[in-house]
């Protein structure tokens, strides 16, 4: 089966914002709750990979990426090992974002 795919630009917004919705538009929490959680569950149910493409946006605040991906662990939407194994992050524009996301997931602890 094919992997489940997310394009942040197409499936959420080409203009990602800060961490929380109260900070301003297009927050990391909003992305997690509206898109990432659902697609992750889909991928898990089908036992396939989840591919998240970070490109074609205006750029990211660290808080957006941390809240979206680290928040998956903190909010107990995902087990760390499963998310790390299933998730592929793509970014040709800024490859360092890929490492950032992996670090945020590794550092996060369930609340």
């Amino acid at each position, binding site marked *: 089966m094919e992997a489940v795919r997310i394009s942040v630009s197409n499936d959420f917004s080409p203009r990602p*914002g*800060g961490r929380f919705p109260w*900070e301003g538009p297009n927050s990391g929490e909003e992305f997690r709750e509206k898109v990432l959680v659902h697609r992750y569950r889909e991928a898990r149910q089908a036992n396939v990979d989840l591919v998240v493409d970070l490109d074609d946006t*205006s*750029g990211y605040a660290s808080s957006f990426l*941390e809240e979206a991906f680290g928040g998956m662990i903190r909010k107990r939407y995902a087990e760390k090992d499963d998310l790390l194994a299933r998730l592929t992050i793509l970014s040709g524009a800024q490859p360092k974002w890929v490492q950032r996301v992996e670090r945020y997931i590794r550092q996060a602890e369930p609340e």
Partner: protein
Amino acid sequence: MRASRPKNPEPRRIWNDSGLTDIFQSTDSEELPEPRGKIIMRSMVETNPEAALFLREFAQQYVTLENETEWLSIQTILLEGMANTVNHADGSSGEERHQSGEPWYAAVYCDEVTSSAKFTFLDTGVGILQSLRKKPPLRDRLLMSTTSSHGVLRKVLEGEITSSTGLKHRGEGLPEIRTIAAFDGEVDRLVIVTNDVFADVTATQFSTLPVDFHGTVIYWEKIGRWKP
């Protein structure tokens, strides 16, 4: 409004190129050449990616970069500055899920002489160090172990002192700015002034100011090629 122009040639050129001549009527009568630079400003109380993009795209009209993806890091610095103001500029911990209400101001000045875009981000909140002084015990210990204010800011930028929220996963913004400036080389100069500290982040030079600045200024430059 009426104002006198700077007398020294270089500040006089910058004054003229900044576009401030549209706002201020000069008190001297000397005709100046057409401005070569452009300045644009935005102010808001939220983390707003559209506003960041507006400033960035303004700069992109005048300056071309060899690696165009470096504009993404300009956007990141603007977003990190906004998030810092929105979360901490009123001195609250940032956990209360409310906007500080403190406005930020951001401007970009495109300078033809140096083929660069010069960004300034400002808030007049409590400042980074003052915000950190309202800390849980862990941070208090770190603060006590450092004698100077600039030593504290340095630790913040190095990620050694985390966010004023006391949450481990917060406080990535300022270290991210430092990484962009000092390691990734994606800006040519980045300076932070907050409370009584002056930090040239790209040059790793920190000093204590004789006066206290109430708020935070982040200034950075990106040199490229001037678009004809």
